[in-house]
């Protein structure tokens, strides 16, 4: 299936780009992170400490265990600092 992945703030800076479409069989966010971690150094640096990263699936905050489905939008970012 295809996923749209977005990166924000320092996660984006480490990964090296702000969005991409990937072809994957990852069933959960955790599966996807494992795939990304192995891809290159930038991704490895971005996802080295998952406790420092938040995820949203289709614009709703999720967890490592959140399930993914075809064409969904997955966003990775540091804890938000609004206000």
């Amino acid at each position: 299936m295809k996923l749209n992945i977005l990166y924000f703030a320092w996660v984006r800076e480490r990964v090296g780009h702000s969005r991409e479409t990937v072809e994957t069989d990852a069933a959960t966010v955790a599966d996807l992170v494992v795939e990304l971690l192995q891809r290159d150094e930038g991704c490895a640096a971005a996802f080295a400490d998952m406790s420092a990263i938040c995820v949203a699936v289709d614009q709703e905050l999720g967890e490592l265990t959140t399930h993914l489905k075809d064409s969904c939008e997955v966003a990775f970012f540091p804890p938000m600092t609004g206000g």
Partner: protein
Amino acid sequence: MVTRVQEAAFDFSVEVNNFQAKVKSAGALVTFTGIVRDDSGGLDYMHIEHYPAMTEAALQKIETQAINKFGLEDALVIHRYGILTPGETIMMVATAARHRKDAFAGADYLMDYLKSRAPFWKKEVSKDHTEWVQAKSTDEAALAAWSRVPKA
């Protein structure tokens, strides 16, 4: 209920006047304004990034929660993104309620949730240094505390 996410500066006075004109039964109006602070004296600008597809919905959800929890007459949230220099206004909230304590609590609650649940990220850029503003562990503690406050 008004929620706006924008790059352009806004006029606080105009926003508050419009807000107040709509809330006829309120006895109390509280506003909060967040301003770019230059602690080190060397800050060139702050770059605020956000997640467009998510931001507006997140702000509306937070605003609706605040209105319901404190029985607010109305609430307003405006949040900017992009490049902001020291002294510039980053964002504002306004709350209107019949009674004072609800207007205060509503604004305080909005700010606590905007801080940790609105998808904005701030980068401080100085001549020789660039740094992402980090969330504090107290931010999450502040949210947990609101669950102990009874509904109005």
